[in-house]
């Protein structure tokens, strides 16, 4: 599907979604309540069939956190980026997608570890890189560590 067709079919399925086409890929902003439903549809809809989640990460914009999901359909060869805004920076929470794409298991644990986002219903929500009793979330912009030196 071309970007235009992709936009049209996503807009038909989810009227509440908003789009951003400034980048290389089509960006779709999704509300937190319908996020899980959107992801399931993107994976299982035969016209979209996004079977590969190749990048999952988070961005700290200070006022809010932004979850970013890059996905590609191996069959149709189209790429889509899903973004979800998390307003609660103190205790951010989002539904897991690791039952839809197994790769999300490790990537969500990484985001939990470094950004402190809690993934609901994740089977193994532990820190992946850092020590279990590490204080704070290093990739947050407000993270301070007195041992950190500037290069």
């Amino acid at each position, binding site marked *: 599907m071309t970007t235009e067709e992709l936009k049209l079919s996503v807009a038909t399925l989810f009227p509440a979604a908003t789009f951003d086409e*400034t*980048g*290389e*890929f089509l960006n779709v902003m999704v509300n937190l309540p319908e996020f899980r439903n959107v992801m399931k549809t993107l994976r299982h809809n035969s016209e979209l069939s996004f079977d590969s989640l190749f990048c999952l990460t988070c961005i700290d914009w200070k006022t809010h956190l932004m979850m970013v999901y*890059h996905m590609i359909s191996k069959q149709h060869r189209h790429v889509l980026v899903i973004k979800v805004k998390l307003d609660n920076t103190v205790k951010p929470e989002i539904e897991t997608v690791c039952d839809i*794409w*197994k790769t999300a298991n490790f990537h969500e644990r990484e985001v939990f570890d470094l950004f402190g986002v809690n993934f609901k219903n994740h089977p193994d929500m532990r820190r992946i*890189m850092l020590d279990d009793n590490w204080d704070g979330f*290093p*990739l947050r912009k407000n993270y301070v560590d007195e041992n950190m030196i500037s290069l």
Partner: protein
Amino acid sequence: MSLLGEPELTEDGEFVINIGPQHPSTHGVLHLKVWLDGETIKKVQPHLGYIHRSIEKMSESLSYRNFIFATSRMDYLSAHINNEACALTVEKGLGIEAPPRAQAIRILMAELTRLSSHQLWWGCMGLDLGAVSPFFYGFRERESIMEVMEETCGARLTQNYMVPGGIMYDIHPNFQNRVKNVLKQIKENFKEYDDLLTGNVIFEGRTKGVGYLSPEDAISYGCTGPTARGSGVSCDVRKWFPYDGYDKLQFNEILETGGDCYARYMVRMAEMRQSVRIIEQMIDNIPEGDFQTKTKAVLKLPKGEFYQRVETARGELGVYIVSDGAASPYRIKYRSPNFSNLSALEHMAKGAKIGDLVAIMATIDLVIPDVDR
């Protein structure tokens, strides 16, 4: 249970042991907690982070010229290709392209890196499965490639040769001749590789039917590179999303359908031959001209997001830069191939014997600094 304490016995009578973090077959500091029923693996839990340096956090305080060099320390066996990925992302943001000469040299260097990486893997895989000779044979050729690198880039392992807009300096006058000599030697020695391992009965017994990964699972786990291509999943970035002029070259994407350790082994063996093929096409056809596009002293990417992927020796490396217009990235994410490939380990190892775990790890071709970053 403490890390070094007595082995634990669970209520189901399963035996829990720790492999690593200091174990020869884990190729670095990977710690696996393994639940065993007799010799059969019930569950594997990788514990990562022993070499986590948070290169992503470091890159946020480095300039667009400097952060590239930190990535040589991720997948140190594909240092060139990591650098290339970053340089390409910055170029994408700036809207420039490397000149043809730089692109050709980048491809040559990337394929030499892939060759040397696969040779090291081949040697270590033999060693992991109990054959000592391949280790020496693998390192013999790798050494000659390292010498070529050293002559042109000034370094053997972390070359730091790629810069935004091209390459740091032109190739050494001896480069072409030396590469041709190396290729001649390597082509002769491929036969020895096959004699030593490929047709070996013990080797086939240790790898055939071991560590099966179905195509659906390979995609779902986000596996890329030879790990996924051994299961028949087409994912070669050089074919899917060509960069630096790979689309003008003649080479094949290697696919095997076995999905076991032997299939992944065969993919890498055939990939080495494809790399030789690419280098042979390029070595006498390096275009004349500049090796670097002129760029400003301080690079600033426009506000926005840039994603670039390349094919390293282990799979797809994605670099995702979020820029707010400043001289250093606001957020940078490295989607490293080994991190996703490792997540499939538990699935592959379940039900296998403990001795097979080493064979499975060897065919994923783990480099731990790339997992931990």
